[in-house]
């Protein structure tokens, strides 16, 4: 069940990213191609109306951002100032990290609640978006859904951390498709966040 959610999330944000790029690309090409005096093709080009592309791109990226932020919690890409926390003893550090994870869940939970309320109010009006004339409440549905998912991800990460002491870590040094010697031993200095359980870094 969770696996399906994970895949759905990844699939959604990747296709929104690709889709938005394609739409803008096509819209720009169209804007200039419609000026070429090729018989029939030009008429056909002019009959297409792509003025909604910009708006579609914005909304797609808003959705991508909200769900991607939730995915980011799972991959550990949301970074903070962890220099000081990593100097603490393991026991205290564990509490501080738990606190910050729960603070994340708290904030996203509140935003999800606000969002639900906001969308509820909007759904009772007939506001639509200027170009595509989509009902705005559908557009803004990204906020309660994305933020709710993010809250869930924070709780999930906090739970795993509490039980195993492991945090998801985004490793910027690892790049797909590039020949790299070996993943370095990042625990050899005290500048990187380290796991509480296990070997516990190099201090």
């Amino acid at each position: 069940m969770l696996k399906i959610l994970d895949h759905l999330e990844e699939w959604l944000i990747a296709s929104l990213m690709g889709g938005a790029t394609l739409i803008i690309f096509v819209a720009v090409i169209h804007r200039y191609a419609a000026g070429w005096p090729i018989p029939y093709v030009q008429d056909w080009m002019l009959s297409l109306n792509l003025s909604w592309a910009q708006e579609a791109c914005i909304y797609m990226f808003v959705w991508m951002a909200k769900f991607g932020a939730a995915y980011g919690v799972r991959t550990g890409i949301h970074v903070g100032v962890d220099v000081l926390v990593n100097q603490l003893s393991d026991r205290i550090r564990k509490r501080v990290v738990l606190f910050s994870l729960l603070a994340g869940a708290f904030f996203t939970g509140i935003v999800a609640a606000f969002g639900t309320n906001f969308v509820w109010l909007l759904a009772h009006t007939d506001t639509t978006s200027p170009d595509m004339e989509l009902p705005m409440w559908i557009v803004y549905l990204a906020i309660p859904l994305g933020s709710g998912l993010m809250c869930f991800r924070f709780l999930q990460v906090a739970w795993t951390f509490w039980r195993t002491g492991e945090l998801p870590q985004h490793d910027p040094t690892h790049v797909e498709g590039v020949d790299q010697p070996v993943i370095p031993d990042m625990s050899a200095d005290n500048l990187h966040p380290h796991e509480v359980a296990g070997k516990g870094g190099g201090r």
Partner: protein
Amino acid sequence: MNSAIIFGLLIALMITGMPISIALGLTVLTFVFTMTQVPIESVALKLFTGIEKFEIMAIPFFILAGNFLTHGGVAKRMINFATSVIGHLHGGLALAGIVACAMFALVCGSSVATVVAIGSILLPEMVKHGYPMRFGAAVITVAGSLGILMLPSIPKVIYAVATGTSIGALFVAGLLPGILLTMMLCTTTWWIARKRDYPRMTRSTWKERGKAFADSVWGLMLVVIIIGGIYSGIFTATEAAAMAAMYAFFVSVFVYKAMPLKDTGKVLLQSANMSAMLLYIITNAALFSFILTNENIPHALADWILAKDLGWVGFLLLANLLLLVAGNFMEPSSIILIMAPILYPAAIALGINPVHLGILIDVNMEVGLCHPPVGLNLYVASGISRLGITELTKAVLPWLGVMLVFLVIVTYWPWLTLVLPRAMGMMPPG
């Protein structure tokens, strides 16, 4: 008083290590619920509409373009070309690395991507030719930071969005400083390499140079697309970024055939992950600066600074110190989002050009990227070279010194940044 509470709370939340975006959001929520009369609805609305600007959407597109480029064999051809031109000098491969970083920076908006793209190809090559790893890794760490200075750059887009400055002017303004920094880094490297007698490559013929240039021309065409497109008004910065992403995809997959088509999904997911993180910080920072503006804090701070009678020389010194210190704790986008709205009003009141301020902030961010504890370039270079952070930090020091000298030049010689955008008519002459 209010400003002390807001910043105190923000700092207290940040040192617990929670994500900066969450710390910003919680600060605003706490403040709104306890201290002000701002209706909660207007805050909520801001949270939803914070990133609904087409200009901001340039960020995901530039990230995507950068990711396609690092996979795409563009870097390799740029290195070949640079080596053919200056490889025969002392420390030739290292010099070629710097020039290749500068070329890559012309088309890529991220420092980390530049370090990865150039470093992962060049470093093994340098070791093979008898350079010590620490020398090569240090050069690439610093030269990679050109990524956010030359032409397109993600921090510049963020600054432009935060302050309403022209993106096109900021892109172009970084070009001359970028060339100056490239020359300064090359001179230092050449001098060190000559003293230690590092190997030289054989001199290439003009025919070989021509061929290497022709090979790399597909990648360099991106400069024409991005800058030419924005400058001539064919498309906006965001559209240029989207075109760049499509073009980079096309070149990587079909021209250089360095990336298999089936990896596209993975690259899209990675880019989405990175973009969403940045957009999330931007949303919450927009909220934060809304509260600051609502409490009139930036203007109060500006008045306070003006009352100190520092003049622009003193103010810029102070701004630099503040940004350098911030660079020890946070990554560039967060610093810019928090600091730019605060520094901007005071800078304008002192007659400092917004584009100049933007480039100055950008150079400060470059310095922060090259030293611990949060310098991402350093970590990436350490990842590629398998050197410890401490060792690499020591190795980077001479070039970091050069960067600081460069920072002083950029700070007190506005002409360098402003002449090009003015000449191109991207900003009013002043």
